[in-house]
């Protein structure tokens, strides 16, 4: 399935808990903000939002990463644009 992952850089404080839990999806940039990558790879320019194809297991872990963010800076949407997190 495809999901869209969005980081709000204005809320992100660089705690990096998302990187700890889902290192294949999040990486810290030089501004100490989390960016979204695709299975460990940054296929094009750095970005705060990206659509990636994931398995259910991967989605569960990405949601766990989003839940771990102390500032709720990460949102996850399904293919229809329905917000999966924060629910």
């Amino acid at each position, binding site marked *: 399935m495809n999901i869209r992952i969005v980081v709000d850089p*204005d*809320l992100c*404080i*660089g*705690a*990096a*808990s998302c*990187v*700890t839990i889902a290192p294949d999806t999040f*990486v*810290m940039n*030089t501004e*100490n903000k989390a960016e979204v990558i695709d299975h460990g790879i940054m296929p094009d320019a750095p970005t705060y939002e990206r659509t990636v194809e994931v398995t259910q297991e991967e989605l569960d872990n990405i949601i766990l990463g989003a839940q*771990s963010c*102390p*500032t*709720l800076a990460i949102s996850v949407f399904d293919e229809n644009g329905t917000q999966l997190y924060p629910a």
Partner: protein
Amino acid sequence: MKRVLILGGGIAGTTAAEELRKLEVDAEITLVEQEHHPLYSRVLLPHYVKEKIAREKVFLKTWEWYAQQRIEVMSGVRLEVIDVKNRFVQTSEGRELPFDVLILAGGGELNVIGGEPRGVSYLRGVDDADELVGLIKETCMKKGDERCAVVIGGGFIALEYINIFSHFGIRCDVVMRGSGFWSNVLSDCAQKILAKKAISEGVVLHTGQTFEIVGDRHAEGVRLGNGSVLSAAMIGVGIGMHADVSFYRDAGIQIDRGIIVNEYLETRDADVYAIGDGAEVLDIHVGRRVVYGNWMNAQAQGRTVAKTIAGQRTAFDLVSSYATNLLGMHIVFIGDVDRRAADEVKQRSTSEESCVEEFYREGKLVGAVLVGDVTPRAAITARIKENRFEM
């Protein structure tokens, strides 16, 4: 049915309850919390105070959520007695609650000056943040030189106050007992970089100072040890945390700087666990017991302890880190950064506005502080994670 009693409804205790419910459908879970609020993010409080988010966005759970999860919450309640031997606690309401499993997740206690007039602010919880919002509004209505504040302290909370006052254009003096920011952790090099940044943004630093708050009903300023008085419409205090040692010691629970637990978050008493800011945890990556007061750590410990209680005994395995900033300059603490516990501290300045301090024990890298350029963070975290100590 297993009766699990959790003291503390912050991120550690609530995560433990949530994860345990996933793993044990039948467990009877009770959460005792001093505050009257459902779980909220303390990390979001500065965002709320700076009007970046609405107040309701601070809350991460609703009361309905606890009911849906079948987690009984006793809010506005303290524990008066913990009887580990006879397996019960007594609450401030006089109720006795028996337990099979006890999780101590009560957090740390804020250090306070004591006897303060109105206008002195602490930033521990959402009630404090509400009061701070009001004080800032009053201060912002003042004109010219009267629109000023004093920050007391040189750690994480003090930095939040500096950032908040700067955000609202409130002139700010900072009073520190030590020689600079995090004087117990940082070298002169890192302190100089941070001091230079603060001064360049118009913040006035007063280091190595004792202090006394001036004002009877409302704070008027701070008198320093050298006799000078800094006038202030409000005062933000961030002078650290401590564990409520005496309460737990009286209960016979093993205490040092926090509640002592092994890598499985177990106290020496069977079925009694401690997690979060009040726990002194044996950290397998740094080879000693450490008290970490940060969100990610507390949340991860909540998850870990739930697994152990559900029968999947799991060691706590996280390289702890904490990130903040001083007026936009990044600061990251990784692992064990207690200078007194390090055999060696190596510092290197990577530029005029950037430095790295590395803390070593038994020849191994156990902690680091990054100021300015924080890009080495991932590599340092990976190095600490590889550590294995004989314990």
